[in-house]
């Protein structure tokens, strides 16, 4: 079973996964964009999946991280060196309640998430800036569709030769027109995630208990 979800609070994502586990849906993994995959299994009402956000440069650091959690009763059920999202489930029934014991470290995962979105934003901005600067992707051309067709003399053609050339180039023209718009949407989304994760981090840090 696949479900698509996007979460801004780790606690909500944890609660959702545990609800599904109680109904018998075993969490198998997820894609970066929020496609969660589940397998039918025995209902597990006491499951306690916890989530951290952390990326690693060295494989040894990643192994050490997993080992530390394992020593503490947490099995690493999904996540890779770069995935960021790391999912843990208790190994035995008497495992601790949470993988964090103070607010500062709970907030820390939001800060790391924020830094991650910020680096993506910077990468996309530099990629797109080059395109927009070279006028390859001018978002305003969507309002002047004729400019999106590069075939020389297209608009002087008539009859079936015009239609053949026009229809052939239309998919490319659409791509060109929407590329600039697409880039602006991606940048906007990234910026939203940066700000949102920053705010959630500040909120968590100030929570009592």
């Amino acid at each position: 079973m696949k479900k698509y979800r996007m979460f801004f609070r780790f606690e909500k994502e944890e609660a959702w996964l545990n609800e599904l586990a109680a109904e018998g849906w075993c969490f198998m993994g997820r894609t970066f964009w929020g496609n969660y995959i589940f397998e039918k299994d025995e209902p597990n009402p006491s499951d306690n999946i916890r989530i951290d956000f952390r990326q690693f440069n060295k494989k040894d650091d990643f192994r050490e991280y997993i080992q530390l959690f394992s020593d503490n009763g947490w099995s690493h059920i999904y996540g890779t060196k770069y995935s960021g999202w790391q999912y843990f489930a208790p190994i035995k029934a008497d495992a601790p309640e949470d993988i964090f014991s103070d607010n500062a470290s709970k907030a820390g995962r939001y800060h790391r998430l924020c830094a991650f979105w910020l680096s993506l934003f910077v990468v996309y901005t530099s990629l797109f800036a080059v395109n927009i600067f070279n006028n390859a992707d001018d978002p305003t051309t969507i309002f002047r569709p004729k400019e999106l067709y590069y075939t020389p003399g297209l608009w002087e053609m008539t009859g079936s030769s015009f239609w053949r050339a026009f229809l052939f180039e239309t998919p490319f023209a659409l791509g060109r027109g929407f590329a600039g718009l697409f880039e602006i949407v991606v940048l906007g989304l990234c910026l939203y995630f940066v700000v949102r994760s920053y705010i959630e981090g500040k909120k968590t840090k100030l929570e009592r208990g």
Partner: protein
Amino acid sequence: MIIKRNKLLPLTETTFYILLALRTPGHGYQIMQTVEDLSGGEVRIAAGTMYGALENLSKQKLITAMPSDDPRRKIYQITDYGKEILALDIRRLNQMICAAESEGIKV
């Protein structure tokens, strides 16, 4: 008279106990056990908090990591700088207790 206090003080409970525990080298799980014992069962550092703390303290040069025979577990130890900071915080805590006692509160 304004006395400039070290920026790292006051230490959090987590940091204080980790530094205290690492006067003897140990790896992550050992540290957690030691801290629980030293604090009389009151301070139990969870896995995620522990990993973050070890990373931060390493960056701040208060502790240092060494490879051990077990490739999946690094051994940590307090640095000389870490010992200095710990001593300063112990002095601060002592001052607080003395202040309470001088006000007539029995400790």
